[in-house]
């Protein structure tokens, strides 16, 4: 119920006087959102993330840290005040918004209004800021998607625009791979002087000479959703208000392991304004697994919505729906729970020991490999003749590597709104990467059929895998079922840490056999993956860890043994890199260690052994994803070129410690600090979707004006997938991206898609879009021909097709519809006649042989072509403190043909930023009772704008024959190699090897002391 001490304040909001009713303790953030300023976002409530930034009397402040009553009589400015609403196009926007849009500074867009406002405050007082000043100003707003590269570039561009100076369009640079000498000169000129601060370096795309240039694909198109995101339009889950909407809140366990003896909700339920209090007594016990994966989901189904046992601090206990968030929280405090405390275990090694507390002792969970030893899965696979290949090894190296539990820290927390629609169907508006999986998984939990559920995915404020889970949807739905009312739920930041998902910590023991001729002949990996309290992605993440960790060097004998173990910690799940990045740390560091120990050139050693074009992936069949996989062959690889380009761009051999100086230490005195400089590298390979499992579909229909509506199930979680899918459709249909209207991720209106995970969207969904576009293009040609009375012959494929480039060049005779071309929004006939697509559309819909030009297609692939890459990192290690400062990261990427260099490079930069966190600081830490000690973004520490190293991205294109226009994936690859490249660089600087991330100052310091 509203607080009876409610009062009215007067503020000048975006230049207009407004009166706002507020409660004494209400934050300015909440008051502004209640006043429909939805551009102001909740991200943490503690002043750590900055998503709630507004200008208060012209100064940027965190509105979550300001009481609304303090705004009385003051000026408050939000992004809604920058440009008229709605903004339709770039020209409608303020120069800062425009610059953000043009430079690709917007990915998920959740932090964008805060970044834009901070930039405005800076540029209002300093029209010509330096790059350092920009980075410093922006440091109060966290972005988890971009790595800040393009945000800084956007502010630089905005400054120029606001000064009224002209600017060329913002686009990538391109060069052909055909001229080695010219390329070498370009790399030397462009990258030899890092940190010069002259011009922001845009991504460079190096293309093979025979890769045909296309009209739309390959262009640096602004994101199709960037105008609305730049203008702060209400695009996210929590940006809508519904009549009668209730607010849900979750009571979580304060104990790591306990049984609920009794739970008394009477006081909470009696509070006026509380409409439901649900516990395990109120909800049917239906077993499920929360990971959003294809049917049938990998087991075990070890969860229920609410249980009589809690298995980690932050586990679900009860859920409440009330008329305000504050009332809901008050109700939670009135719930009395009598816990029977049980012994708990936090360490995976201890959990596997007989006699350890049994975390899943419930009789109704099936499929746990060894419940008494908390071992949920044992995975074993081997390929090749073990004895023979070990016998060939002249040297055997064995090392152990450890990785930590990293949190996704997407700035938008999990959010969900559920309600009954007018047809009595349950609508779920949710921030999810997997809308179709959510519908299928949710149905049995709430006792509905799938057709009675409609899932809508609005814009998502970042996910990175954490929204490939059903986190809130079931609880929110239960509350709507119980109350009949719309219910909204949103996690707090601390709940994100304790009650969502995280990266699986691992312990990896690698054993590698090499010959004296640098050949790696045998590799074995023993892995322990800590899945926390529930299994969810435990099987698949760790299978991928084995598959990817043994594929990069594709050893003739490869063996994998893995235990996935329960502990009483918050549950691990899907996270960008998905096991592969953990084992890339292990195998890449070990390969570097071997090279160092043997006195071999590390690049040459890796080059001789990495997987090559034409090779079969040794472990692809044995280790699928949750099931047996498929045989796969590498059909394209630019890895060798990636490494060559990276070596030249970083002047590697000039900087790298010489082998004959292996014992020397490169130490310099800077001021009074003892600094050691190093350069390191890693190579990496990932995948493009899950072979034989991921399926995507697309529908394209033609509209009256010759534009097209593209319906895709693919879930753009800020990556720009809507944009690149539009580019693919536009390329095939001969229009610009602006003529493709994208609707995505709505289970009622868009075709099925498995969702956004496994680096699948460009490759799998992109192929589906291209197929649908080819069909539609054929229909357009046929109708256009009919309009002109031209009779068409069927093409060889049974439909119309375009002529190949070779046929066009050779002047081959027109043979049918394939000779009719679509480009520049028109249909072009070989005899020179043309008609616009609008003419075709109007004719087909209203005049001649009336029909809807529409087609659908779906795509599944038994290949998952790996993108490849190389990362080069330059570090400075403080020899006295152990602090590692990364000064530069350069990544060369083979993602096949790059559909959109700006969005693709944004993926690379963002992945690198998350990789830096994984390598240097991010780690969920627990006390002895299993309580997380750093459940805040500040103490946990996500990288800020003013501490990012210089990041450069170079694409080395290849033509993947199975990809749409030759494309492969790009989203996960960049996170895979950061940690091992830094480990290699630290070794180059100091001579020590670090085998556990993060490389905190104390870990480095201890290692240095051990060395001396």
């Amino acid at each position, binding site marked *: 119920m509203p607080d009876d001490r409610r009062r009215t304040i007067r503020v000048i909001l975006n230049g207009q006087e407004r009166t706002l009713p507020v409660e004494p303790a209400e934050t300015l953030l909440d008051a502004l959102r209640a006043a429909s300023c939805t551009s102001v976002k909740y991200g943490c409530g503690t002043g750590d993330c900055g998503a709630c930034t507004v200008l208060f009397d012209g100064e940027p402040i965190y509105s979550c840290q300001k009481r609304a009553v303090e705004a009385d009589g003051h000026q408050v400015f939000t992004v809604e005040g920058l440009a008229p609403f709605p903004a339709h196009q770039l020209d409608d926007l303020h120069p800062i918004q425009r610059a953000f849009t043009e430079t690709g500074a917007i990915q998920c867009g959740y932090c964008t209004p805060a970044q834009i406002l901070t930039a405005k405050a800076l540029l209002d007082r300093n029209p010509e800021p330096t790059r350092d000043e920009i980075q410093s100003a922006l440091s109060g707003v966290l972005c988890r998607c971009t790595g800040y590269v393009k945000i800084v570039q956007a502010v630089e561009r905005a400054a120029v625009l606001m000064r009224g100076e002209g600017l060329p369009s913002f686009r990538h640079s391109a060069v052909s791979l055909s001229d080695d000498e010219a390329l070498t000169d370009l790399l030397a000129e462009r990258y030899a002087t890092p940190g010069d601060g002259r011009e922001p370096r845009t991504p460079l795309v190096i293309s093979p000479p025979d890769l045909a240039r296309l009209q739309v694909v390959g262009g640096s198109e602004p994101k199709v959703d960037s105008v609305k995101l730049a203008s702060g339009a209400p695009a996210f889950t929590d940006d809508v208000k519904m009549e009668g909407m209730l607010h849900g809140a979750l009571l979580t366990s304060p104990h790591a392991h306990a049984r609920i003896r009794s739970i008394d909700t009477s006081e909470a339920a009696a509070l006026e304004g509380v409409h439901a209090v649900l516990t395990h007594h109120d909800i049917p016990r239906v077993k499920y697994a929360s990971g959003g994966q294809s049917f049938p989901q990998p087991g075990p189904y070890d969860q229920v919505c609410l249980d009589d046992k809690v298995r980690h601090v932050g586990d679900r206990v009860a859920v409440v729906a009330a008329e305000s968030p504050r009332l809901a929280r008050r109700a939670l405090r009135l719930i009395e729970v009598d816990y029977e405390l049980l012994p708990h275990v936090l360490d995976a090694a201890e959990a596997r020991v007989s006699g350890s507390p049994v975390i899943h002792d419930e009789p109704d969970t099936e499929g746990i490999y060894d419940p008494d030893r908390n071992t949920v899965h044992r995975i074993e696979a081997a390929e090749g003749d073990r004895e023979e290949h070990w016998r060939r090894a002249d040297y055997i190296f064995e090392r152990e590597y450890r990785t930590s539990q990293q949190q996704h820290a997407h700035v938008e927390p999990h959010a969900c709104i559920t309600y009954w629609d007018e047809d009595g169907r349950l609508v779920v508006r949710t921030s999810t990467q997997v809308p179709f999986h959510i519908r299928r998984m949710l149905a049995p939990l709430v006792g509905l059929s799938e057709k009675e559920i409609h899932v809508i995915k609005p814009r998502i404020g970042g996910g990175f895998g954490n929204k490939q889970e059903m986190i809130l949807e079931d609880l929110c739905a239960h509350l709507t079922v119980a109350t009949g009312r719309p219910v909204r739920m949103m996690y707090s930041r601390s709940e994100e840490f304790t009650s969502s998902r995280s990266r699986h910590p691992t312990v990896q023991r690698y054993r590698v056999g090499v010959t004296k001729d640098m050949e790696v002949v045998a590799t074995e990996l023993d892995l322990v993956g800590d899945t926390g309290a529930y299994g969810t992605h435990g099987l698949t993440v760790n299978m991928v860890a084995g598959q990817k960790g043994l594929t990069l060097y594709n050893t003739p004998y490869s063996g994998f043994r893995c235990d996935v173990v329960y502990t009483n910690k918050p549950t691990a799940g899907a996270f960008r890199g998905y096991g592969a990045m953990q084992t890339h740390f292990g195998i890449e560091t070990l390969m570097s260690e071997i090279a160092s120990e043997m006195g071999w050139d590390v690049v040459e050693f890796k080059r001789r052994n990495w997987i090559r074009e034409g090779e079969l992936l040794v472990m692809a069949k044995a280790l699928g994803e949750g099931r047996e996989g498929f045989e796969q062959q590498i059909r394209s690889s630019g890895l060798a070129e990636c490494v060559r380009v990276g070596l030249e761009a970083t002047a590697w051999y000039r900087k790298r410690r010489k082998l004959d100086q292996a014992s020397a230490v490169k130490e310099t005195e800077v001021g009074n600090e003892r600094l050691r400089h190093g350069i390191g590298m890693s190579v990496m390979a990932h995948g493009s979707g899950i072979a034989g499992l991921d399926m995507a579909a697309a529908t394209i229909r033609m509209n009256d004006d010759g534009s097209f509506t593209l319906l895709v199930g693919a879930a753009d979680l800020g990556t720009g997938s809507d944009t690149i899918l539009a580019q693919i459709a536009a390329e095939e249909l001969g229009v610009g991206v602006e003529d493709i209207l994208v609707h995505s991720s709505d289970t009622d209106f868009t075709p099925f898609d498995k969702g956004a995970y496994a680096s699948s969207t460009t490759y799998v969904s992109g192929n589906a879009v291209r197929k649908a576009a080819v069909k539609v293009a054929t229909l357009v040609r046929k109708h256009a021909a009919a309009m002109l009375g031209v009779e068409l012959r069927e093409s060889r494929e049974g439909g119309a097709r375009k002529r190949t480039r070779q046929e066009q060049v050779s002047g081959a005779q027109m043979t049918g519809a394939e000779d009719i071309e679509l480009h520049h929004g028109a249909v072009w006939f070989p005899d020179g006649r043309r008609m616009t697509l609008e003419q075709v559309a109007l004719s087909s819909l209203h005049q001649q042989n009336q029909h809807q030009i529409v087609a659908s297609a779906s795509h599944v692939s038994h290949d998952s072509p790996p993108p490849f890459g190389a990362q080069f990192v330059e570090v400075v290690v403080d020899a006295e403190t152990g602090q590692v400062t990364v000064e530069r990261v350069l990544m060369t990427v083979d993602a096949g043909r790059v559909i959109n260099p700006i969005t693709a490079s944004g993926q690379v930069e963002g992945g690198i930023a998350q990789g830096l966190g994984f390598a240097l600081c991010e780690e969920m830490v627990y006390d002895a009772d299993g309580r997380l000690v750093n459940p805040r973004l500040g103490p946990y520490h996500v990288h800020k704008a003013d501490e990012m190293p210089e990041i450069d991205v170079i694409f080395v294109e290849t033509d993947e024959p199975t990809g749409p226009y030759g494309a492969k994936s790009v989203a996960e690859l960049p996170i895979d190699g950061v940690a091992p490249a830094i480990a290699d660089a630290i070794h180059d600087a100091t001579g020590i090897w670090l085998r556990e991330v993060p490389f905190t100052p*104390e870990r480095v310091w201890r290692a240095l002391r051990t060395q001396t």
Partner: protein
Amino acid sequence: MSEQEAGEPWAVHPDASLQAVLEAPCCPALLRTALTGVHSWQLRTQTPVGRTLRAFQLMPQWIATLLALGASVRLEQGDGAREVSLERFGRQASSGDIAALHIPLIDSACRWGEAHVARTPADEPIVAAFAWVRFGGGVVEAARVALTGVWPEGVRLVAPGNALVGEPLTVEQILTLAARIRERVEPVGDYRGSERYRRAMAEVMSRRALKACLELEVSDA
């Protein structure tokens, strides 16, 4: 924010924001260093000076810098006003309203130094040291070193100054002093740095901050 008068310490109103302090032309460079990097523009804007004085742990680097500079607090009560050192103010629960923070300004005879270690460049330091030294006639007239991250309460002024006063500042003295500081600190370990690590860093950071003072003195000479 009050204007600074010649020869007088800089009087800062408790309601002034940290951003206003940072932007003031007379703000010492040492304070600027402490206020940027870790703390965002937003946080500085909405954090009044008075709040940081009432809770030292809120912004330990800023407080440590004030301690090193020898700042004091003017308190007002019903029976009048009194000036207390910031160090004393922090140690005791001083009654009265804060009327002003007085920050001595660094003149040409003063040198300052800062050093810290953190997981990343803009992370909250694990340990930080701030040093201030006044030279006169080739010898140290006064010196202060404040540290964060090595006391249970987060920040404290170490009082090594007397050991240096009256002597020329030398590397040997600094090393001796830093080693003594290492013995005096009472760190509490956490996930960012153990007790042992923090103790070791107390020595390193103190030494570096003091050496920075020495280097400035040498270079200016």
